[in-house]
C-alpha cells in the first residue's frame, strides 16, 4: 500500500525556554520517532498539548528541534532537516515540503489569487502558468471567483482556510504537512477539501496530518499515531487507534 520512505523522524526532542518568564521550560516533544512513506497518510491524534502541531512545525523548521533527527528522502539524496543550512531549508519549503497551518499566515494586503500564484511560482512555474495553476487550485476548493482579488485579511475563516490549502496543494509536493486544515469549513467545502487531500495521497504524496475530527481521520488516514505528553504512545490502523481512543473517552 505504501511506497518508498519520504520522512523519517527519530527521537525528536523539543523544549521551549521562556526567558521572559524567568527561564521557565516547557517540554513539547519528548523523543518522537515516526516514518511517513510516499502515498501514505499518517494522522496524528491526541489531546491538546500532546505535541502534534509542534511535531509538524519541527519538520517545517518553524521550530528548531533540540535533538533527534528528521530525514527527508529526495530522489538520489537524503537530507537531514534539523541541521540543514537555513538557505537550503528555505528552498525546500514550498517546493518539496508544503505546510498548511490551521490559520492562514499570508502577508497582509494580498489577494487569494496572488497568494496561491506566489506559491506556484515558488514551485518553479512561470508567471503565466502560475496564475492558471492558482486559478485551478482555488476553483477545486470552491472559492468564489469574486473573492480572488480581495485582500485575504478581510475574508472569513473558512475562505482563508481554503486559500491556505489551495496554496499548499497548488502542485503535489513530496511531503504535505496539514495542521487542522478543515476546522473552519462547512460540510460542503469540507467535503471538497477532504476529497482533495485523499486524491493527493493517491497520487503518491506523503501526508502527515493533524485532525481533531475523527471522521476525517477515519476517511483519510492509512495509519494513525496517537501522541500524549510529547511522545508517540500508539500506532496502528485508523480503526485500531480510534476505537481505542473512543473507548477511553
Amino acid at each position: 500500500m505504501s511506497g518508498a520512505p519520504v520522512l523519517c523522524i527519530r527521537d525528536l526532542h523539543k523544549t521551549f525556554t521562556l526567558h521572559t518568564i524567568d527561564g521557565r521550560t516547557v517540554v513539547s516533544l519528548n523523543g518522537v520517532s515516526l516514518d511517513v512513506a510516499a502515498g501514505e497518510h499518517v494522522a496524528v491524534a491526541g489531546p491538546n498539548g500532546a505535541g502534534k502541531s509542534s511535531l509538524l512545525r519541527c519538520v517545517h523548521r518553524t521550530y528548531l528541534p533540540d535533538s533527534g533527527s528528521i530525514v527527508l528522502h529526495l530522489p538520489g539524496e537524503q537530507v537531514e532537516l534539523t541541521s540543514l543550512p537555513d538557505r537550503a531549508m528555505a528552498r525546500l519549503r514550498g517546493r518539496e515540503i508544503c505546510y498548511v497551518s490551521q490559520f492562514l499566515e499570508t502577508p497582509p494586503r494580498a489577494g487569494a489569487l496572488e497568494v496561491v500564484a506566489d506559491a506556484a511560482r515558488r514551485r518553479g512555474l512561470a508567471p503565466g502558468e502560475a496564475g492558471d495553476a492558482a486559478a485551478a487550485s482555488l476553483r477545486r476548493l470552491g472559492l468564489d471567483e469574486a473573492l480572488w482579488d480581495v485582500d485575504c485579511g478581510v475574508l472569513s475563516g473558512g475562505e482563508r482556510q481554503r486559500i491556505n490549502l489551495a496554496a499548499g496543494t497548488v502542485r503535489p509536493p513530496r511531503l504535505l504537512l496539514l495542521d487542522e486544515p478543515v476546522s473552519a469549513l462547512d460540510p460542503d467545502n469540507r467535503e471538497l477539501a477532504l476529497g482533495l487531500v485523499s486524491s493527493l495521497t493517491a497520487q503518491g504524496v506523503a501526508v502527515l496530518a493533524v485532525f481533531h475530527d475523527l471522521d476525517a481521520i477515519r476517511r483519510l488516514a492509512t495509519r494513525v499515531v496517537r501522541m500524549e505528553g510529547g511522545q508517540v504512545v500508539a500506532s496502528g490502523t485508523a480503526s485500531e487507534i480510534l476505537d481505542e481512543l473512543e473507548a477511553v473517552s
Partner: protein
Amino acid sequence: MTTAVRQLLDDPRGAAAGILDEGAKREIRRATLTAVCVPGYQVPFGSREMPVARGWGSGGLQVTLGVIGPGDVLKVIDQGDDGGVNATNLRRIVSSTSRCAADTDAREATVIQTRHRIPEEALGEQHVLVFQVPVAEPLRGVQRSSAECDRMHAEADYSAIWVSLYEDIVRNGIITMSTGYPVLVNGRYVMATSPVPRWDVPRLHQADHLNLYGAGRERRIYAVPPHTAVTPLTFDDVPFEVEHVPGARCDYCGSDDSFLVEAAGGRFVCSDSDWCSRTAAGDSDTAAHRARAPLAWLPDPSRRSLRSRPKPGAPGTGAAAPEPQPLPVKTGTAASPRDGGDWMLKVDRVGKIFGAGGERAVSGTGPSFGTAVSPLTGAIVAAWDISFDVAPGEALGLIGESGSGKSTVLNCLIGDERASSGTVRLASVDGGETDLFTLSPAERRKLRIDTVSIVYQDPAAGLDLRVSAGGNIAERLTAAGWRSYRAIRRRAAELLDRVEVPLSRMDDPTSTFSGGMRQRVQIAKALATGAPVLLLDEPTTGLDASIAAGVLDLLRGLLRERDVAAVVVSHDFAVIEALTDRSVVMQLGRVVESGLTDQLFHDPHHPYTQRLVAAARR
C-alpha cells in the same frame, strides 16, 4: 588707462621686464605645458594681479604674456570685435610690453587673445588661440564644492552634468545651454568651452591650431592641443545644434554662414568684425569658410520631437544605441535543495570599533556584558564578528534595536565606513576573491552604480530633490554609461510605472513629492541598473502607517520578481517578516541569533529575540 600702466609703458626698464617677471612667466609656461600634455585638464597656477580687473581677461592676459615674444603678431578680439575698449587696451598693453607687432587681420596674427569667439578665418599651426575664461569649471553649475568637482574629474564621474542636460531637454525640448557648452576632450575630461557660442564648438575638434585657456579668478590654465578630439556632450539621439536664425544674413557683408548677432532694427551683422570687413571688401575665401562653417549642426526640429512622454513598454523609435539588457526578472527555475554555496554577498567576521585599543577593546563588551563600551579602553565596539552571506533571489533580514550595530554593518558594506576587521566580498567582483575594503574609493563608487544599490530611510539621502523623478533615475543610468535619451526615458518610465509613481509626475522635481512617493522614486532609482545586490536601510520607517504599508507591499513584490540578493535592515519584526526568508538578530554589536525568519518569530531562543518578538506581537 591707469597712471601706473602708463608709467609702466613709458619706463624703458619696466617695459623690458614686461608686466610679468620671468619667474611668473616660467610658472605660466610650465602650467601651460602641463595643460597641453593633458588635454582638457585644468591646471592650477599662481594667478598674478594684472593691470586689468579680474573678470576682464586677466587669465588670458597672463597666458598671452607667457607665450608671446618679440617675433609674434598679436590680435585681440572681444565678442569677435577688434575695436572694443577692452580689446584695444589689452592689445596695447601686450604689444608695448612684449615688443611684438599687433594686427587685426587673423591671417597675419600668430597669437590671438579672445573672449567669446573663435575667428571666422581659417586657423593653422601658426596660430595660438588664447581664451579669456570667466568660469573654468564645467561642473560648477551642478556642483558647488571645488573639491567634489576635482574628484568628479579625477574619476570621470560626469553623471551630474549628464543629468543637467537631461533636465534641460525635459524642460525645454532641446538643450538650451548656449555659451560655455561642455565638451569631452580627448575622450577623458569634460571641459568648459569658455563663453564661445555653440557655433564655434565644432571648430575645436581636430583643430590645426593650439587653444589655450586662462582663468585668472579661478587660477586655472587648460588647453586643447592641435589634432585633439573634442566632442560636445549630447545624448546619442539628441543632436548637438548650433545657434541659427533661418534666413538671417549679415547686413553689411551678406554672409549667411558666419556667426551673426542681432543689431538694431531686426538686422543681423557678423560678430567677427575683421572677417566681415574683409568679406565686404572681397578679401576673403568664402568658399573655404563655408566648408568650415558648422552647417551640419543647424537646428532641425524634425530630428527632435522629444517632448512626448513615453509609455511603458511602447516600442522604441530610432535610438540605434546599444540597448542595455532588460530589467532582470526571476527565471523561476527551482534550485537544487542542497545548493547553499552560491552567495552573491559574503560578510566575514566584520568588526567596527570606534576608539582606541583595536581588538583589545573587544573583551568585556557585547550582550553578555550588557555594554558596547570597552571597559579597558573606553572604545565603542559597534560591531564585532558579524558574518552572513546572501544568495541571488534571497532576502536576509538584519534586525535589532537602535544601537545594536546594524547600521554600522550596513555602512561597512557600502564602504561609507571602513571596518576595523573582517572582509566583505561580492561574487561578481574578482570571482569573490577580493575584499571590498581593499578597493579604492573610486572602485567602490563604481560598484555602487551597477552592483550594489541602497535604499535609505530618508529619501533625501538617495535622491537629488532638485532634480525630477526621471532625472534621478537618469543619474544612475548615465553613470552606468547610458547615452540614449529615449532609452533613459523609457527605462525611467518603466521603473516609475513599476513603483506606481504616476507618469504625469515623471518630470516634476522630487522636492514636490510626498514622502511615500519620494521613497518609491528612490526605490526605482536603486533598481535602475539592475544591480544584483540591494540594501534596504529601514525602508519604511520614516513613513506613516498607511504609506509604509504600500511601500512594504511594493518591496515584497519587487523582491519576489527579481533575482537580487537583498539585505533588509530594520528594527521592526513586521518589516523583516514581510520581506525576508532568513534573519540575523543583532544586539550590542553582536549577532545573538540567526535562522529562518519564521523560526526566529515562532521559536526565538535568545532572550533578546524573545523580547523583540513579544514587542512585535502588540
